[in-house]
């Protein structure tokens, strides 16, 4: 009975602890319903099929303003920008879609095709085996999937641990299984952290620009930033932002030339 009481107490404690907490945020007050989002999505699709890409973009962006997003929505929006030859924004939306549907083959094809068309810089430094493996691992899952897999692995570890205690199995087998599960758990937890970190302050250049040595128009140009290039925003100063390209080069660009992913 004492355990039951404790469980009940934990449950009561947990419900208001969650960040959602049942409190409607200010952003949610202007939230559109799923049905409205669906209706606008269909309108956007029709406009695209008629070749009216501006209207398609407007319809799709209305859904985003209404607080709803989906991987396919970003994919279609990316296609609409691509048709308008705005490769920077097309790649930006494909990047956003990759957060939600990273394994979608159509998306990945369009993304790399848009990159090739834009001639965007994707110059990564040399990656060692572990970093390559981690990069492909991180790109394969969404953040939610990684968190759920980590939670599932933790649950499995607890079950195996208790089962081995109560069923009195071999200690060696128990250690092997728990060790393997723990390695997987660490791998997924680390992947989640890497994914969160890689998404923090990531942006895509939406227009061709030049990165300067200093945040001034007259400063010497260090390197060029092509539309569609993925960059990391290190800090901002008035209308300028210090960025780092994937090859590690750093410079200052006007804030208007990029959008956060």
């Amino acid at each position, binding site marked *: 009975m004492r*355990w039951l009481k*404790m*469980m009940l107490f*934990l*449950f009561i*404690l*947990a*419900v*208001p*602890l*969650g*960040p*959602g*907490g*049942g409190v409607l945020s200010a*952003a*949610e007050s202007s*939230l559109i319903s*799923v049905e409205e*989002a*669906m209706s606008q*999505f269909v309108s956007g*699709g029709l406009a*695209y*099929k008629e070749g009216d890409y501006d209207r398609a973009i407007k319809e799709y962006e209305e*859904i*985003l303003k209404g*607080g*709803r*997003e*989906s*991987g*396919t*929505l970003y*994919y*279609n929006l990316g*296609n*609409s920008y*691509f048709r308008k030859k705005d490769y920077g924004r097309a790649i930006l939306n494909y990047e956003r879609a990759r957060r*939600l*549907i990273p394994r979608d083959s*159509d998306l990945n*094809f*369009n993304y790399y*095709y*848009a990159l090739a068309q834009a001639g965007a810089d994707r110059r990564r430094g040399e990656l060692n085996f572990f970093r390559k493996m981690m990069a492909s691992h991180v790109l394969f899952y969404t*953040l*939610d999937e990684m*968190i*759920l897999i980590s*939670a599932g692995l*933790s649950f499995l570890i*607890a079950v195996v*641990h*208790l089962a081995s205690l*109560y069923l009195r199995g071999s200690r060696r087998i128990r250690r092997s299984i728990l060790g393997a599960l723990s390695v997987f758990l660490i791998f997924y937890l680390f992947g989640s952290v890497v994914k969160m970190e890689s998404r923090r302050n990531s942006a895509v250049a939406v227009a061709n620009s030049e990165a300067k040595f200093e945040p001034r128009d*007259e*400063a*010497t140009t*260090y390197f060029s930033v092509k539309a569609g290039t993925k960059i990391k925003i290190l800090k901002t100063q008035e209308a300028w932002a210090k960025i780092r390209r994937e090859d590690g080069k750093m410079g200052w660009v006007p804030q208007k030339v990029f959008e956060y992913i």
Partner: protein
Amino acid sequence: MRVKALFVGQYRKIFWIGLGFWFLLLRAGGAQDIGFYAEVDRKSVGLGSTIQLTFTLEGTQEIVSLPLTEIDNFDIRYLGPTTRVSIVNGRYSSSKSFVYSLFPLKTGRLTIPSVAIHVSGKTYTTDPLEIEVTDTSARLPAGTAPAPSPAQPETSRLEDKIFLVLEVPQKEIYLYQKVPVRVILYVTDLTVTDIHFPELKQIGIDVGKLDRPKQYQQIMQGVRYQVVEFNMAVYPTRTGDLTLGPVNLECNIIVRTSSRGSPGVRGPSSIFDDDFFDAFFDRQEKRPVTLRSQEAVLHVLPLPEEGKPQNFSGAVGQFNFDVSASPLEVNAGDPITLRMNVHGDGNLKAVQLPALSSLQGFKIYDPQVKEEEQAKTLEQVVIPNSSEIKDIPAIEFFYFDPGLKKYQTISRGPFPIRVRKAEDREGLKIVGGEKQLDIVEPEVVGQDIIFIKDSPGTFYLMGRHVCHDSRFYTVIVIGVGVWIALYAFYQRTHKMETDVVYARRLLAPKEAGKGLRQAARLKALNQKGEFYTALFKTLQQYLGNKLHLSSGAVTFATVQPRLSGCIEPAVLEELKHIFEECDAVRYAPAALDETAMSGSYERVQKIIDYLERHLR
């Protein structure tokens, strides 16, 4: 109404103050003289450091930029303009400054020439400035630096500290011949970062892939240089005298620069002009430079016509050629793969492997060519048309050896094959085989993005993740709670099974309670002897469990030494009394009445309660 509002209330005061200020500006502005000056933040600088040159134009802001793009012996960089407006004692003055960063390219006494500008029809000129540039290597840490020697041998130049050399070992070569080229960066007394790969774009010369650069040190004429060596190969594609280079290489030099204010602020003979303060205030910055090597002239000879094979395709160098065919036994209409491999040192990129289009009795498909670092491989599928074919004829590869200065031929084959008739293969006959084989022809396909999707998938709340969902945390907390509960339960059960002392201690109050209830029942039946026996046994069993003793061995004499330090003497005395009472009643039960029994019962109960609280 709005105009009127300007002259009433709080606006009236602001209006008159503004008007007065405007008249003041107009009156003072006309009276200011125009001046144009040049100044530097320091007159003496080490090679490898920068100085700041400021042109100040006073009295007007008409000039947007200065006609200054280069200064001899300096690398110049425009940092930008600054503007200053001041009103002191009603006198308005304004000035505009143009700030440049100068990087001296050699040591010695260098001159910044005068600069002239034209304002309102008049010409204003700055005075020339003298700058003393000393050798960086003489700039030792504070306290150890000797005074600059008057007999300094000769002028040091930046080009002596960082330079690029293009080395071509062979100047007279044949067309298409591979020429190894070394581009070497020498650096001394400077810190260089962000070294780019050298650029060599040349008409008439094909430039090969750059190898990974090598880094080492080299002493030349008594000076130790840090060396970065890039190796590449070039291939001349036309005859005559070709100029190779210059090679450009971009890098950044780390230079020292003063972070202090301008000399105008500090005054010309400020105590902060001391070397000590220079070292303290100096900061470093990257200065991009483009280095340029010398040129080299290649005399490119045409390939000799004498002895030139008819099928020579332009391979120049030293090569080996291997050919293999498999399988060697096939049915008519089945493919045979011919693998040709050319490896060696030469212009592999331009090497054409032997064409087999004229091979009689075979159907030939487009070859697959694979190029590696030192080899080129060609895979060619050939299909014998009939069983009459007995071999694949010999294949010849021709190349020109520049060392021997003559053409060489390598012949491989013929390759005997056995072709069976097609009828021999029951059930495997290809109907319309020729047509089917046509599908392997490479198809030209268009490329574009994939069409939009009709289904939106799941709509999520913007920026919401599973970790923002309270249900997720609820499940996690419940899961952890269950795990802790089950683990704690297991630990307790396990200890009960394995630790007898713990188990007996834990069970002692439970068993004592049972014994007391039995005694209470006997008391109610007024069975005095049995009651005291039950009471005695309960006490014995309880103390036995608590002190981990055999129950039968528990008497006051056995428990007294173990309890005397743990409990109060009064309780110990009470315990002794109970033991004695129980002993006495068992031999003379009639001596006690029901009140005495109740008293004994309560005393035992109290003692057990007390021991339960104090005996750990």
